[in-house]
C-alpha cells in the first residue's frame, strides 16, 4: 500500500534535546505532510514539502525529503514539554483527492 511508515514508533527525550522522526513510503508522491496530534484531539498540520523540494523549515521544525529513498524526516530542535504528542506523516499522490497517513511516532519530552 501507499501508507507511510514512521520510525520510531515511540521516542522519549529530555527537554532541550532534538527529536528526529522518520517516514518511509512506497510510490511516487505529489507532496508529503507532517501532522501533530495531542492526546484525544484532532490532527494539526505542521508542514508540507513538495516532491521537488529537499528541505523545508518552520520555526523549530525542519523537514527533509529524499525521493530517491522514498523517505522523509522531521526534526524538532530544542524540544519543549509542550512538544509531547504523536506525529504523523501523510503522502499525497498525483491526481488523488486523499492523503494516506502513517502509523505515527509517539514523542514524549521529559522535563
Amino acid at each position: 500500500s501507499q501508507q507511510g511508515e514512521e520510525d520510531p514508533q515511540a521516542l522519549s527525550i529530555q527537554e532541550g534535546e532534538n527529536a528526529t522522526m522518520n517516514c518511509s513510503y512506497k510510490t511516487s508522491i505529489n507532496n508529503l505532510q507532517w501532522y501533530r496530534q495531542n492526546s484525544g484531539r484532532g490532527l494539526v498540520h505542521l508542514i508540507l514539502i513538495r516532491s521537488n523540494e529537499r528541505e523545508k523549515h518552520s520555526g523549530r521544525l525542519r523537514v527533509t525529503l529524499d525521493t530517491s529513498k522514498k523517505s522523509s524526516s522531521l526534526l524538532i530542535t530544542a524540544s519543549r514539554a509542550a512538544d509531547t504528542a504523536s506525529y504523523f506523516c501523510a503522502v499525497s499522490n498525483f491526481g488523488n483527492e486523499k492523503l494516506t497517513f502513517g502509523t505515527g511516532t509517539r514523542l514524549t519530552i521529559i522535563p
Partner: protein
Amino acid sequence: SQTIHQWPATLVQPVGSPLSLECTVEGTSNPNLYWYRQAAGRGLQLLFYSVGIGQISSEVPQNLSASRPQDRQFILSSKKLLLSDSGFYLCAWSPLGGRQPQHFGDGTRLSIL
C-alpha cells in the same frame, strides 16, 4: 477564518443502535470533506471522502455510510452499530484539489457497549 465543528465529543451507544455523527465547516466553499477512524494508538484509516454535494467515495467496505446533504455538512451514519465500530472518529476538510493540508475537527470518541 475557516473552522470545523464536529459533535458530539464522546458517545456511548449499545450494539445494534443507529449512529449519526455530524461535521460542519464554516468560512470556506466547496471543500473536500473526509471521515477517518483511528483505533487506540494507531494511525488514521480513511473511511469516506467527498468532493461535492452528494458525491461520496467509500474507502473501506463496512457497516457505515456517509452523506453530504449540503456543501459544508458531512454526516457519518450507521443503521446498526457493531462492537468493532468503536473508535475515535475524525472529520477533516481541505481546499478543493486534495493536495492541500487537511484541517481536522476535535473528533468523536465512540464506545459501543
